């Protein structure tokens, strides 16, 4: 993607601007007050009389969320990060008026001294390959004209005017695109099944298209980001899919936790309707399609397709037995096709650039790129899109910039509550659907949570079990009671009451739950336990046999101590301790009263000299 290629023309006013300031307005940056920054920027620009030369554009999520608010200066590609209101007057005067980029606000990689001025020279951006996120940070997501200027809706025009529905399906099949929601079912095949499905009756012959934006996996936010930065891309993909399948109604099921994404989708739908890209008789071809937004209400199981449809219908959102598959009998009994946000957003590029191009990226069985949310104990948290087959090492070290504070990498958790943990021995594993399954994890929606030496694997397994236990709809016995039983044992282990035989029992029970559950939630809920057992069995044994938590996380097994050599007697921990459990004089090593200590971790967090130890 050539980022320098942007025309410095404002679409709305037709005015020519010397410079465009692409200020991120994704959720992360908004919470770091990027709208306030915009206000101050515009005020300062006016003060310097630059308002006709420099334009501030609010873009979707830039991806480098850790550094928010971030701003990219076009056309040169300067990258400014962690902007504060007070920095703005200086920045405007120095860079935008006098042409001297401000080094102080540029990004400096950890452990380096010289800042990197330009965005595409930063490892985080340089090594990514953008398809689903092709428009991120380049357009104003609330303006359809900017999307169109970047070849938007060109694929739709091509499909509607030059291609037959079956040709579209053939093209998608040839591209090798697989569902990005996690299971990796071939998208073209799914469309074909729905296309061929017989309507319910002669009178009821509609079909439905659903976009699954109920991104429930904790630690994954790519769907949110795609919608916030490029909502029209998703809509275009859906319209193309609808044409290929022969559907006239569409739904987007989106989480209630994503208000900004929802707002932008609503706006995008309205704009598309005004332009005649949605509604009746699109491009005068006689094809009709409309899209409705359905808001979720906070239930993880709604990401499962059958329960998602039940939720839209207003029934209790419990999964049901398949077959019949949604392609035969879905929403209100009609043939229905459900795809994930990222899948839809990838479709226009495949049509525009051809199936061969897409199929040339990636591995043998997994084609194209995948968006991952790289979070947890990593320097460059944010959203990354890389070709399938990229190794974990490249993602974590070259793009992610490694582990903060010089800690040691321990594992990476992928696939959310259905996935597993991959240990450091497998850092050179190329990521695709099959390889991840081989090591006991799954692709999932693409959450990648990096864990360092301070993360306890029993605690991680317990965390996911708590999650699935909470979110189990309760229909299947094996999932409802099984998660409860697994959790009980894990609880016991982390409280130092583990016994011989617990590990074997976990494995036996986990397998039983896998075999006996109806939907994906139950079938995969033992994965976090089984995969941590597989790769970190010794850590479980430490908990059970020696009653020790090596990472210092499980509270019942840990005590807090002051390292007398490191303690400078600054009193910071004593001042912050909520229990007044720390005593000591100024400039003398402190002591912690173990009877009073509630192990809240406060002293560990506030100590600037690493003098608090967890044993």
């Amino acid at each position: 993607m050539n980022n320098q290629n942007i025309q410095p023309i404002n679409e709305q006013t037709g005015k020519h601007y010397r410079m465009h300031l692409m200020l991120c307005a994704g959720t992360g940056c908004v919470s770091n007050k990027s709208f306030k920054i915009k206000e101050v920027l515009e005020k300062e620009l006016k003060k310097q009389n630059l308002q006709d030369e420099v334009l501030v554009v609010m873009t979707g999520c830039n991806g480098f969320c850790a550094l928010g608010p971030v701003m990219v200066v076009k056309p040169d590609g300067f990258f400014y990060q962690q902007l504060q209101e007070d920095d703005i007057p200086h920045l405007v005067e120095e860079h935008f008026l006098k042409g001297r980029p401000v080094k102080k606000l540029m990004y400096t990689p950890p452990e380096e001294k010289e800042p990197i001025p330009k965005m595409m020279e930063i490892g985080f951006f340089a090594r990514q390959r953008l398809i689903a996120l092709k428009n991120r940070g380049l357009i104003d997501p609330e303006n359809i004209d900017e999307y169109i200027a970047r070849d938007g809706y060109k694929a739709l025009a091509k499909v509607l005017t030059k291609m037959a529905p079956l040709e579209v399906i053939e093209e998608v099949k040839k591209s090798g695109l697989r569902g990005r929601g996690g299971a990796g079912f071939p998208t073209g095949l799914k469309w074909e099944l729905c296309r061929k499905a017989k309507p319910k009756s002669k009178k009821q012959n509609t079909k439905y298209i659903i976009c699954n934006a109920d991104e429930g996996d904790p630690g994954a936010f790519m769907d949110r980001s795609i919608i916030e930065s490029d909502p029209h891309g998703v809509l275009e993909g859906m319209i193309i899919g609808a044409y290929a399948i022969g559907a006239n109604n569409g739904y987007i099921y989106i989480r209630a936790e994503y208000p900004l994404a929802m707002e932008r989708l609503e706006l995008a739908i309205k704009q598309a309707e005004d332009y005649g890209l949605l509604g009746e008789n699109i491009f005068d071809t006689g094809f009709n399609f409309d899209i409705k937004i359905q808001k979720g209400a906070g239930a993880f199981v709604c990401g499962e397709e059958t329960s998602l449809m039940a939720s839209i219908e207003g029934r209790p959102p419990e999964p049901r037995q398949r077959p019949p598959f949604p392609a035969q009998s879905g929403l209100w009994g009609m043939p229905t096709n459900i795809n994930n946000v990222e899948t839809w957003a990838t479709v226009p590029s495949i049509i525009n650039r051809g199936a061969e191009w897409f199929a040339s990226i990636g591995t043998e069985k997994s084609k194209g790129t995948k968006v991952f949310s790289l979070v947890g104990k990593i320097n460059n948290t944010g959203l990354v899109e890389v070709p399938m087959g990229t190794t974990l090492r490249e993602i974590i070290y070259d793009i992610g910039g490694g582990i903060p504070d010089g800690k040691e990498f321990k594992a990476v958790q992928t696939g959310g509550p259905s996935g597993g943990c991959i240990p450091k021995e497998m850092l050179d594993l190329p990521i695709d659907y099959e390889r991840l399954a081989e090591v006991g994890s799954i692709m999932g929606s693409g959450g990648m949570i990096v864990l360092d030496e301070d993360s306890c694997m029993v605690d991680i397994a317990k965390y996911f079990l708590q999650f699935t236990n909470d979110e189990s709809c309760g229909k299947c016995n094996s999932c409802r009671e099984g998660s409860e039983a697994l959790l009980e044992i894990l609880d016991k282990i982390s409280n130092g009451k583990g016994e011989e035989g617990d590990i074997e029992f976990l494995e036996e029970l986990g397998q039983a739950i896998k075999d006996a559950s109806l939907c994906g939630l139950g079938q995969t809920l033992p994965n976090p336990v089984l995969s941590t057992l597989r790769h970190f069995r010794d850590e479980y044994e430490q908990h059970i046999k020696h009653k020790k938590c090596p990472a210092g996380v499980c509270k019942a097994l840990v005590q807090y101590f002051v390292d007398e050599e490191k303690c400078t007697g600054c009193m910071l921990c004593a001042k912050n301790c909520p229990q007044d459990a720390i005593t000591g004089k100024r400039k003398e090593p402190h002591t912690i009263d173990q009877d009073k200590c509630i192990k809240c971790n406060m002293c560990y967090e506030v100590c600037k000299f690493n003098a608090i130890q967890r044993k």
Partner: protein
Amino acid sequence: MRNAGYSMEKIKKQRENIMNHESDIMNQKKVGAAMVVGGGIGGMQAALDLAESGIKVYLVETKPCIGGVMSQLDKTFPTNDCAMCTMAPRLVEIGRHKDIEIITLADVEDIEGQPGNFTVTLKKRPRYVDEEKCTGCALCVNNCPVRNIIYTEPEKEELKLSDEDLQRVRVIINNYKNKKGTLVPVLQDISSQYRYLPAEVLRYVADELGYPLSQVYRLATFYNAFSLEPRGKYLISICLGTACHVKGGPSIVEALGRELGIKPGETTEDMNFTLETVRCIGCCGLSPVMKINEDLYGKVTQKKVPGIINEYRTKT
């Protein structure tokens, strides 16, 4: 919420007991008759299997007839098989089997002896019908005046909604009248107006939209976004997504609990703050994250908590 009422310890013990007993049983003399207590689908199948292997079976049931709960079901999980189609052949077979004796309306009083050789005392409750003479023509059933009471609609409870509430709810409902799948959006709109779902309003909604109250209640309790308890002026949601979990989300929950004196799911007495946890709000780049109403706070530490809360305290 879904406590099973069992413990792993209990199960393990039972397992051991059975193992120990098994060897004793093998050495003892067995008597050629078995008793199955409970005439549900499980008991029926057990009785049939035993009888097929040549053992005399007494099938005991407390109700007037065998069949149990399954006879009341339409379909069974997870195969969606028709329940009656599974049961009917077995019912017929049991009725005809010469080695199965059905004893209904009976309770087990006492069991004596060892596994393999025991005596059971049953207490049969009266049937008030001469079993010898009854042909099962059902004439008495159809004419029983107690059974055939005319069904009358229960009197509707009077709604206790104020005019203002009624106005508000009507506006919401009218937006969705005559559309499909409207219950969840209606509940969402009510929740965003009232910040919780008041019981009276739910009752009214069920009536107006024609849903059973049970279904409304089920949805209202299924989704995490709904609360049946009033929420405080400021709703604090702490993200406990994976990224926030590993970066100290749980300790933020505790710190907030200490600051406000409440646990997650509770509201302070002055109705100012409600503490809730939420599974990932998709701001993992800023973890740990918390949200107070619509304001997002990233990279929260325990130390920052009192300051943030005080900001809101001074606002109230």
